[in-house]
């Protein structure tokens, strides 16, 4: 059984006018389907990448997997549990929340600007009551910072004192703080310089090997995805149009849209040689 199973995942947004206005003007209801019947599964310890252009529903899927957005239809099973199962009690919900964490796209909006780094990293630890003892908690914060290549004295600083790449490392440290098994990376490198991108990607890879993490990696950058993913799913207008192993899919794309995406990716190698 796969670690993550999404089956028939659908999310619709009701954009129509209030019913009263509709009655007067005679306008039809207007429902936007952001994600339509998407099914995929992720094996434990592997990376599944979702690729697609802006507005293809990547982030909506990420939020549904993270349990902060309920699907309109379909379900997500993480290690056999479902966030939206009405029979899931609070203790199990908490346990499930602890297993899934997220690294966000914007390094500027993902850290509370009024909180010190130490407090940001302590938040998940305190929320799940992971460590009772105060000194041990402090030690854990330092350990987390060192794990992502930052130093212990950074914990007394505020987010605005760091660069984008450093903030993304802090974001990763926060995601690691409660020992998750699945990390959803929602375009974690798209706001970073190319050189910093490589560092963050290597960090994510190393952490995956050390801790046996499972990744859902969302990106529109095929070069990034080709280095990270074991399996790729291609999204177009909320639908999964093609899915396959990384090497196979990139070498031999079947769907017209995948071919177009590959052709559109800038290939700098051609200029060097």
């Amino acid at each position, binding site marked *: 059984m796969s670690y993550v199973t999404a089956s028939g995942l659908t999310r619709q947004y009701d954009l129509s006018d209030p019913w009263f206005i509709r009655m007067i003007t005679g306008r039809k209801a207007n429902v936007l389907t952001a994600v339509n019947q998407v099914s995929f599964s992720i094996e434990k310890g592997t990376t599944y990448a979702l690729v697609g252009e802006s507005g293809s529903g990547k982030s909506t899927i990420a939020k549904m997997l993270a*349990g*902060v957005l309920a699907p309109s239809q379909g379900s997500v099973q993480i290690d056999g549990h479902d966030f939206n199962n009405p029979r899931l009690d609070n203790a199990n919900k908490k346990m499930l929340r602890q297993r899934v964490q997220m690294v*966000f796209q*914007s390094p500027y*909006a*993902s850290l509370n600007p*009024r909180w010190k780094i130490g407090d940001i990293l302590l938040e*998940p630890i305190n*929320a799940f009551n992971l460590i009772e003892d105060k000194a041990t908690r402090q030690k854990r914060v330092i350990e987390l910072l060192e794990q992502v290549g930052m130093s212990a004295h950074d914990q007394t600083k505020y987010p605005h004192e760091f660069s984008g790449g450093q903030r993304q490392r802090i974001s990763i440290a*926060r995601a690691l703080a409660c020992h998750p098994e699945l990390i959803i990376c929602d375009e974690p490198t798209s706001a970073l310089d190319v050189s910093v991108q490589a560092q963050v990607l290597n960090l994510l890879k190393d952490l995956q090997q050390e801790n046996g993490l499972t990744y859902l990696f969302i990106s529109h950058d095929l070069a990034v995805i080709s280095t990270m993913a074991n399996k790729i799913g291609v999204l177009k207008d909320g639908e999964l149009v093609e899915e396959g192993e990384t090497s196979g899919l990139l070498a031999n794309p079947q769907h017209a849209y995948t071919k177009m995406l590959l052709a559109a990716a800038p290939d700098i190698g051609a200029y060097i040689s």
Partner: protein
Amino acid sequence: MRRFLQSDLFYSFRYSPVAIVSFVIIVFIILTAIFADLIAPNNPFDPASLNLMNGFTPPMQANDFTGETFLMGTDDQGRDLFSTILYGLRISLFVGVMAVMLAMLLGVMLGLVAGFVGGWIDSFIMRFADIQMTFPSILVAMLIYGVAKGILPPEVRYEMSIAVLIMSIGLSEWVPFARTVRGSTLVEKEKEYIIAAKMVGLSRYQIMIRHILPNVLSPVLVIATITFALAIIAEATLSFLGVGVPTTKPSLGTLIRIGQDFLFSGEWWILFFPAVTLLAFALSINLFGDWLRDTLNPKLK
């Protein structure tokens, strides 16, 4: 302290003469009001110390009957105007501060809930605010004042008059706070750090208080300063209209009302000195508030 002296705020303060002058005036007036007992030559709230013979003494002139001289003259009851202004300022400041606190508490709370929860609660709070905004706030204050006076039993009316005044001004000034806080909350709640907080299972209440509140407070400070000036003027207006503090404990507005009765019979000083004090104070707060707004607004930098 050293961090404050090195901050951008202090730097901009040092190079803004308007901010410095208005700040000095505000601090000066607040200090004189706080230490009124020590500065004032006599206590105008103590009827025993008043001498009716001293009534209508012009500033810096000896009284025809008693021979006493007063810095700013006296009013019709023989109260020393200078002392009365100091004591009156104290009442005006107290009412102003408390009214702003009430308005701020109410406005921030309602704005935060409206912005974060959304839906019909948001519509209800904001439509209520819209309706209140269509009335001049002094009218709302008078309405609340009238209703409160009507509800209270007659024997406590006198003691409660200042509390009622604070409530009526506070309840009429909460709308700008609520609107601003709601706007910033709508921006903040879509940011990714809120999703991160949801993902560790924090409740709505915890997210609102711990994450959103600290991030929406800086514009509140600016509105609070400007509302403070408005509240003091509102208090003066209410007292001027005769619905504010009792005449035995005159605030600036009460003094202006008394002075107005005698303006055309040549006793100009009873109106002039309280009015100038009110003007200087309200103007300084407004100028200081404007400077604060310009400095804290990153878009104007």
